[in-house]
């Protein structure tokens, strides 16, 4: 995957604006007691037909923080993540119950009366496998902007460049923006998808196991990126890799069989969880 992309082997040239943002980031101690809240999940359930995949979950997503969802396969973490932009609407026989309120305006994402398109305009998503569109690198990033009515060439060019820089991809692709997105390596494709998600200035980005299809080097880059993005945007990330959760997140929610077992600061969850089930999971006794 790294072949044909020597830049991956070197330290990444990063634009200056990104640098000051995280600085000496002592991960958890830095969290203020009163971080503002981006989303409030309340008594939320999700059903595939008769099967209740998410059970009465209530949780708080803090603004400009990284919240990780962990748990064994089938625990409902990805299902829950996909409720935040109503991806389940694309499939028949799915039902939401309860609330996922986006703050500060407090509108309920999963209310059927809310137009999913309007809501998705505010929340971006990065998927398990890179899924660039069959378009050029430039048009991949411009896609969401065009949907939002941006058509001036100079504005598009500026915002595409800004997004690609934000995804630490600009230096690698600036000379071949017209080439198909498929020509990139897997890791670059995933960063292209992150750029695509960033370009539209979302309030929240959902990451669904974004590194599960990538090699360790590409994975490290994505994790670094997630780290850089927080502070600007609220991030919700699903991962089955506990080290990854520990490395990138501020808060961690542990789910099991559709229920939220425990949610706390990441350091607390990994060093001193209050539930036995959580401890068993993070010490590798199941899952």
């Amino acid at each position, binding site marked *: 995957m790294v072949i044909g992309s020597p830049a991956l082997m070197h330290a990444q040239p990063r634009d200056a604006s990104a640098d000051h943002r995280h600085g000496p980031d002592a991960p958890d101690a830095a969290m203020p007691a009163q971080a503002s809240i981006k989303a409030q999940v309340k008594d939320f359930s999700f059903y595939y037909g008769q099967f209740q995949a998410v059970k009465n979950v209530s949780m708080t997503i803090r603004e400009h923080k990284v919240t990780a969802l962990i748990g064994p396969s089938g625990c409902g973490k990805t299902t829950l993540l996909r409720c935040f*932009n109503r*991806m389940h609407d*694309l499939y028949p026989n799915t039902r939401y119950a309860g609330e996922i309120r986006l703050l500060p305006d407090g509108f309920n994402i999963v209310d059927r009366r809310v137009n*999913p*398109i*309007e809501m*998705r*305009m505010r929340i*971006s*998503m990065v*998927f398990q*496998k890179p*899924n660039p*569109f*069959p*378009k050029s690198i430039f048009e991949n990033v411009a*896609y*969401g902007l065009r*949907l*939002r009515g941006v058509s001036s060439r100079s504005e598009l060019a500026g915002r595409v460049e800004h997004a690609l820089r934000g995804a630490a991809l600009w230096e690698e692709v600036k000379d071949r923006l017209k080439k*198909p997105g*498929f020509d990139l390596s897997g890791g670059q494709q995933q960063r292209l*998808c992150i750029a*695509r*998600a960033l370009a*539209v200035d979302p309030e929240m980005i959902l990451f669904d196991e974004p590194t599960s299809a990538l090699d360790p080097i590409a994975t490290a880059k994505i994790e670094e990126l997630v780290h850089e993005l927080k502070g600007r945007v609220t991030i919700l990330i699903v991962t089955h890799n506990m080290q990854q959760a520990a490395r990138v997140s501020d808060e961690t929610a542990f789910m099991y069989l559709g229920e939220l077992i425990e949610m706390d600061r990441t350091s607390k969850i990994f060093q001193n969880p209050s539930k036995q089930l959580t401890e068993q999971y993070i010490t590798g006794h199941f899952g």
Partner: protein
Amino acid sequence: MSQDASNAAGRGSRLARADGSLGARGLLSVMIERGIEFGLLLAALASVAVTLGIVFVLVRESAPFFAHVSLGEFLFGTEWTPLFSDPKYGIGPLLSGTFVTTTIALCVAMPAGTIVAIWLSEYAPHRIREMVKPVLELISAVPTVVFGYFALTVVTPMLQSVLARINVDLPTFNMLGPGIVMGIMIVPYVSSLSEDAMRAVPMLLREGSYALGAGRLTTALRVVFPAALSGIGAAYTLAMSRAVGETMIVAIAAGQKPTLTANPLESAATVTAYIVQVAGGDVPHGSIGYQSIFAAGLALFVVTLGFNLVGAALRRRFRQAY
């Protein structure tokens, strides 16, 4: 087989006897396997052999024709009258008839077929799709002679009454009517193959588009359609081959008068219509008039092959590895 053998080896006391009989069975299954492989190879070679045979017959039978008619006259002559007392052998009029009717057919079938495919793949609920597809495919089961008379007795009169309002005179035999009917006939070819291609596009791509706030139409047109372009191109190529080769509709409804024209309102003959006219008539075998149908067939073959090659090259160019 090797699994059988290892199971037998584990059975201890019955090993010797079991091993012997398994050996025989093993040999049998190897022979069956070889036999199947050989049969499959034969089947694959058969289609190649048929194609080569067709090319061989076309070339051999048109050789006497080209001994009599120069290639220059054949390619650049503007009249095709092999059966007249003063014969002219320019293939142009036949090819123009084929091109005009094919173009009209594609102008109908490509947009209509694509729209149907998009609807079936992106909009239609599962149950309705499963009902509509076979019904659509029934269209291609209608004998083309029926379509020919449909063009002659229904579509052309309708076109005549419409065109009469803008003072355009449409003869009974024309290329427009049969072209449109041919287009209707090949809509299912386009829609069925295009729909398969679009449904093969991974859901992940659609999700990516929806997640950015796109609606259904945008997702279908700007993500699914380009991703399926190579398959859709194959559908278009097949539809064109079908239109180029179509015989009965044009033979019945376009008139059988070879005319070098691009005007769809005129009557004309296509290559295939000419071939069927001569083959069904009383032209003596071995005459230049009779051999001319092989020359015409060869010309058609070369043209179709050329288009298929271009289509294949385009498909390779636009192939997307999602």
